[in-house]
């Protein structure tokens, strides 16, 4: 069935089709309609799941951890301050190797208060051991939730995943979405059957104290799990394509990158607008491309290394900023692309914080700028885009 729905409903439908068994969530703008829709599915009996209303996001994640430890497929959704309040228990979920899937409606952090998009909340959870998938469309949100369960529940992975949708730009935008048949999803995603779970009559220790002679081995195994997630994600996407006819290009989507002189690397909904810009520049004979970061964790290091060997310049657009350093995506891209022989010019552009619109005109100017600094072989600074009071005009 193809119909029109918001990104938040796409999340709710994704969780429903994945037949989640436990949902624990606390409402926050702009995530609320995900929770409302799922509560409706549960109350009408369309989804046979336990819905646990809780008093905070910390408790929501704690409840998901408990349910997942007991062998239930669980789901939650949050945003911004809700996600950062979860921080402690996010570490627990990954350390305990629980394949929970969560939607984060990525929203700026306060102060000053903002309910609009940027990626600071998600990026701040970089080191929690969660997989992170940034989405470009509502269809991709729904599909990625289903794929994420399959990747995360693989015995070699057993780690949680965050599916990230941009606040309002996806969460509240209505657009066509194909809702796959439940039967097809069932054939793709079998019921969750973990190797270890809490069971009456089968005593086992969970989350115990380990001494220094054992701790590192647990961390090492989690590292292997994340490594496995990379390959698993690629094979799961191929399987998804085979059944549903849709794919998104692996961990790093390449859009018109063949023979490109410079490319724009970015994540989330801005990539959608950027594709229009790439097409219009290409129509004028300008050789540009787009590298869309779908997975921030595991990061597509190999892909960027290969891309760095082919192009002269990479503009990395970050929708967040790591104070005292640079954009988090930029740091990763540079580390990957500089490990080869050819060193492209890589420049960081900080844009779209707190919902500031990133227009096609701005993206076009980013392309113009990266072409210029690439030609001059400049070692560029981090540039803040479209900020009042700075000399450069972006609009």
């Amino acid at each position, binding site marked *: 069935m193809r*119909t*029109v729905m918001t990104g938040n409903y796409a999340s709710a439908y994704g969780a429903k089709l994945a037949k989640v068994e436990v949902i624990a969530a606390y409402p926050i703008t*702009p995530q609320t309609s995900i929770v409302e829709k799922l509560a409706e599915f549960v109350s009408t009996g369309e989804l046979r799941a336990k819905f646990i209303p809780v008093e905070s996001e910390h408790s929501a994640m704690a409840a998901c951890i408990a349910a997942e430890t007991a062998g239930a497929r669980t789901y939650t959704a949050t945003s911004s301050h809700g996600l950062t309040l979860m921080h402690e228990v996010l570490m627990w979920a990954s350390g305990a190797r629980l394949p929970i899937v969560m939607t984060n409606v990525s929203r700026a952090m306060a102060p000053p208060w903002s*309910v609009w998009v940027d990626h600071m909340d998600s990026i701040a959870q970089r080191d929690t051991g969660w997989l992170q998938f940034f989405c470009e469309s509502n269809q991709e949100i729904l599909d990625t939730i289903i794929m994420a369960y399959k990747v995360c529940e693989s015995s070699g992975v057993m780690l949680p995943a965050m599916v990230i949708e941009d606040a*309002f*730009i996806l969460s*509240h*935008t*209505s*657009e*066509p979405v194909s809702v796959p048949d439940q039967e097809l999803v069932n054939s793709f995603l079998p019921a969750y059957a973990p190797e270890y779970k809490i069971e009456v009559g089968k005593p086992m220790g969970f989350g115990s104290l380990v001494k220094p002679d054992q701790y590192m081995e647990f961390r090492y195994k989690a590292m292997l799990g994340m490594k496995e997630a990379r390959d698993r994600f690629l094979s799961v996407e191929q399987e998804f394509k085979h059944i549903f006819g849709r794919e998104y290009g692996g961990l790093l989507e390449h859009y018109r990158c063949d023979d490109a002189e410079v490319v724009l690397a970015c994540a989330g*909904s*801005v990539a*959608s*607008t950027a*594709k*229009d810009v790439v097409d219009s520049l290409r129509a004028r004979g300008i050789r540009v491309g787009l590298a869309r970061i779908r997975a921030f964790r595991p990061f597509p290091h190999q892909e960027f290394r290969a891309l760095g060997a082919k192009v002269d310049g990479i503009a990395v657009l970050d929708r967040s900023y790591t104070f005292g350093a640079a954009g988090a995506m930029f740091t990763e891209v540079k580390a990957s692309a500089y490990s080869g022989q050819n060193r492209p010019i890589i420049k960081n552009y900080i844009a779209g914080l707190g919902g500031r*619109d*990133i*227009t*096609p005109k701005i993206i076009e100017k980013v392309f113009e700028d990266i072409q210029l600094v690439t030609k001059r072989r400049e070692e560029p600074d981090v540039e803040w885009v479209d900020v009042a009071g700075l000399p450069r005009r972006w609009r």
Partner: protein
Amino acid sequence: MIEVRFHGRGGQGVVIASEVLALAAFKMGFEVSSFPFFGVERRGAPVTAFARIDKKPIRNRSSIYEPDYVVVLDSGLLKGVDVLEGLKPGGKVLINYPQAKKLEGLPDKYSYFVLDATSVAAAHGIGSRSTPIVNTAIMGGFAKMCDLISLDAIMASIRELAPVKEEANVAAAKEAYERTVEAKV
């Protein structure tokens, strides 16, 4: 591609109006996208929403700055908000406004359509008598103003999206369609 901007107040169903349009166009075979700009989501505060309609998939996720159509659900906003900002030359404007009253102080480079959506919604019992919900009536008027979108598609879309009183909302859209007229300025 056509781009539409909606102006109204919290409680009038501005965002749903944009969704009704998107779903109606989708039912007619178009690709669509509609999105709100939420400022403070309070009853009575100015709210803006947007819609894009095209034959090919819509990828531009930037806001709309130069719409082809503007829809004004509350004529009181004509004083405080520049509802015509960026409207393309030859653009069309639909205003919830009594037909008998003359529109004043608007530039003549645009076409204007008026419809007393407040009376229509009230007559069909939509919302409360003091604050009728005018979004479904205004969308009937939109079908009259915009040749691309049929009244049938608008009615089918309303039937799917109205949470209550589906038939009253559909009837309001139909009556509104008939009562929408082009106005001189």
